[in-house]
């Protein structure tokens, strides 16, 4: 409870926030002859500098200009009731009487004003951590379509979504997370569109977040994931509000975390990782072609090195003769088996990629030049790798980059190596065993209760129009009402 005595309050605050150098406690006076004491408390690192003294100024100006002639006019009691009835409402001040609440508000960056002789405090919002302005999303750039991307500030993000989704059906719920961070986590959905069982599963799992320190959206992803050890991502991210709104309309649940730029879309299904918001902004046959291309890229990224190894070590009769002669010419004089050759090239490619991501930009370009020389030219001249293997690893790498969702590209690169080992020992049969294993895993995987491979398995023909191909918009079900009915046929009228 907040004490009536200002000195008590002050000492209590000082003991709680001892050694917090950025806490400012500013005592001041007001009233006729400056006879009343007051105290402003705020974190200078969190509060807007201009706003820190706004309320104080207001009070002082109120006291300096007598509203009435008698000197009892600016009496404390009248002032208190003035605030309690929300008299000064230029900036939305709130009267609070709980000390723990006051403490929490301080940490949020709000300004508290304690008045002597009053067991309450005035709080107003002055939170102003410097935030990045709305910018083009760097991880999902498009040629066509909106160029707004989400930022670290959650309120801005919600605004970007609300302005695109002007319906009361768009619900946003708060999750109180625990620990020391108290990160604000919101999840939203369109009530009509989301399948109830998915929402129920989500709500059950999100409660785990209440005891966790949530620093980034991916913490939430891992908490609600079905299979943590699967290489395949079961939820996807977007930095594009238009993409998030489209997901909401399709019955997805989105999660926003204060301080993180990306929006988590759950559940993520396998086929959605081959889609991009731009698919809907381009003409239908172009989008369809690109989607098919991505599926080809998926198989190239997963299988090309394995196919080469199996053909060259087990089944050379399957290579066209003229190509075989060309391959023979390039392979002659390479001391390593093709598996070792492939692993060397793949590892050096992965190293190069990893080095390129983490390094500062000026150094990064040097890495790419050296890497291109080493992989492209020197490795061949040194007799470590054959040109055909360089081509294969390069095509594999490019194919994995052409899949719009980065998470699945990494999954593919993880699966390449086991598949290569299998093919190097058993040829094409090994590859089949590996593919079978992957297919079994995918078919048994579920994301928030939804089959991961749907609508491919279980097959839903109606939904295939927006899976492998992109049908014209008039044929697609974008209305949440219909999407809802589709998911719950029994509830439709």
């Amino acid at each position, binding site marked *: 409870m907040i004490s009536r005595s200002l000195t008590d309050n002050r000492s209590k605050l000082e003991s709680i926030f001892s050694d917090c150098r950025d806490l400012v406690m500013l005592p001041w006076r007001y009233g006729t002859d400056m006879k009343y004491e007051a105290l402003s408390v705020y974190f200078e690192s969190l509060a807007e500098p201009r706003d820190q003294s706004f309320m104080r100024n207001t009070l002082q100006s109120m006291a300096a200009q007598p509203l009435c002639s008698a000197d009892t006019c600016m009496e404390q009691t009248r002032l208190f009731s003035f605030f309690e009835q929300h008299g000064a409402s230029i900036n939305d001040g709130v009267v609070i009487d709980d000390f723990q609440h006051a403490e929490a508000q301080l940490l949020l960056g709000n300004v508290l004003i304690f008045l002597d002789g009053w067991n309450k405090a005035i709080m107003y919002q002055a939170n102003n951590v410097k935030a990045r302005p709305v910018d083009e999303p760097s991880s999902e750039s498009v040629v066509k379509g909106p160029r707004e991307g989400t930022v670290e500030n959650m309120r801005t993000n919600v605004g970007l979504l609300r302005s695109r989704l002007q319906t009361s059906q768009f619900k946003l719920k708060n999750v109180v997370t625990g620990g020391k961070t108290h990160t604000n986590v919101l999840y939203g959905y369109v009530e009509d569109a989301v399948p109830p069982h998915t929402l129920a599963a989500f709500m059950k799992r999100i409660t785990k977040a209440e005891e966790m320190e949530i620093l980034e959206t991916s913490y939430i992803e891992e908490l609600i994931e079905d299979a943590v050890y699967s290489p395949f991502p079961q939820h996807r991210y977007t930095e594009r509000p238009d993409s998030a709104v489209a997901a909401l309309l399709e019955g997805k649940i989105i999660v926003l975390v204060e301080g993180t730029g990306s929006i988590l879309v759950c559940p993520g299904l396998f086929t959605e990782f081959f889609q991009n918001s731009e698919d809907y902004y381009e003409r239908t046959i172009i989008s369809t072609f690109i989607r098919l291309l991505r599926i080809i890229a998926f198989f190239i990224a997963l299988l090309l090195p394995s196919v080469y190894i199996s053909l*060259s*070590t*087990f089944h*050379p*009769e399957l290579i066209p*003769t003229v190509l*075989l*002669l060309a*391959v*023979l*010419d*390039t*392979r*002659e*004089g*390479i001391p390593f*088996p*093709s598996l070792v050759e492939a692993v060397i090239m793949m590892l050096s490619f992965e190293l190069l990629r990893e080095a390129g991501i983490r390094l500062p930009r000026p150094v990064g370009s040097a890495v790419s030049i050296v890497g291109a020389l080493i992989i492209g030219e020197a490795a*061949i*001249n*040194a*007799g470590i*790798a*054959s*040109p055909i293997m360089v081509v294969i690893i390069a095509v594999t790498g490019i194919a994995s980059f052409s899949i719009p969702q980065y998470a699945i590209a990494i999954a593919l690169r993880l699966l390449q190596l086991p598949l290569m080992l299998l093919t*190097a*020992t*058993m*040829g094409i*049969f*090994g590859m089949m*065993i590996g593919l079978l294993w992957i297919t079994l895993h995918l078919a048994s995987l579920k994301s928030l209760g939804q089959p991961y491979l749907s609508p491919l398995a279980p097959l839903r023909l109606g939904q295939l129009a927006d899976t492998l191909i992109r049908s014209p918009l008039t044929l697609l079900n974008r209305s949440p009402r219909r999407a809802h009915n589709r998911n719950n046929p029994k509830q439709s009228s």
Partner: protein
Amino acid sequence: MNSRMIAAALLPILLLTGGCWDQVELTERGFVMGVAIDLAANGGIELTAQIYKPQQKAGVGSSNQGQPYANITTVNSNIFESVRDIPTHLGRRAQWSHQRVILIGEDFAKKHNISEALDFFNRDHEPRQTSKIFITKGKANQFFKKKPLIENTISQQLKRIQESTAKYSAKSMNVNLFMLNLQLESQTGFAAVPYISPDNSQDQSIALKGLALLKNGKMIGALSPIQTEHLNILLNKYKNSIIEIPCEQQVGGNHPLDESLEVVSLQTKIKPKASMESIRVHIAVQIKSSAGELLCSDLSTTKGEKKFIEKVQLLVEQELRALTDQLQARKIDMLGIGNQIYQMNPRLWRSLKPNWDDHFQRAHFTYDIRISLIDTGMLIGKSSVSK
């Protein structure tokens, strides 16, 4: 539980080791491009395999390394033993699945049934049924010593020669191992195989000498390239070629060059009517053609065109008749008439078969040649050579 864990651990080992012994790197194999079968001096089989020698392109030492092939000759009494002897010379395991050609020496083909040599290639899982077959004048392995003109190896060049010639000039036939087997196993037992000889007039070159004719697997004769063209017409295997038409000698003029017609499409139907007494064969040929070279004929009028066509029809009939007459005289049923009779009337064939050579010789042939001219190539339907 524990035993299940052990089983789970052993299963991958079982699977992994199960495949490993089939694993052979490309650099541990020698790819056989072509194989030549000759009669050895001791009466056995002299097998020469042309093996592709990779031109090292990666790493150091990628300079000029000579010809991209190595020829290995082994002598044995059968093919398989000779095949297994290749690594003793080469040091690499021979891989047969990219074999382009099988060359069979004339001496061998005249003395042995070539099926004896081909049995290995039919039975083993690596060699392909699509390998092209040639019979060679002289020793077969002499061709492997020739330098290819464009292709990497002479084997590849021979394969391309057979394909392109059959397609564009009809002076040869596409005969691969599978088709040869079909011919050898047919009722009459006659087979035709492209016949080549070294061309000594042009260095390093190969001359296509038409077809070698086989009966029951043994070579009994040959046809010239022009006869091959006519045989292709009769067998409806004629894809695309030229009909040459001689110009009449003009009074006081030099001997003129030949005119030519390009055949656009050709369809032949052979209809035999057979009984124990007589065999009648009707041959209907439909040719669509366009003018290739016009030197002396005038097609600008309907009358001139009709005259020209009649002339060509007669010419084609004469040529075909000359071939069938010769085949009849040599008792070689290359037209597959016996096979057709077998298909239509097996019972009759059974009684005809023992004396089929004589029946064929007495067969009566009638011809119906129809030629249509669809294009003269230019707006003027006569020679563009100004007089």
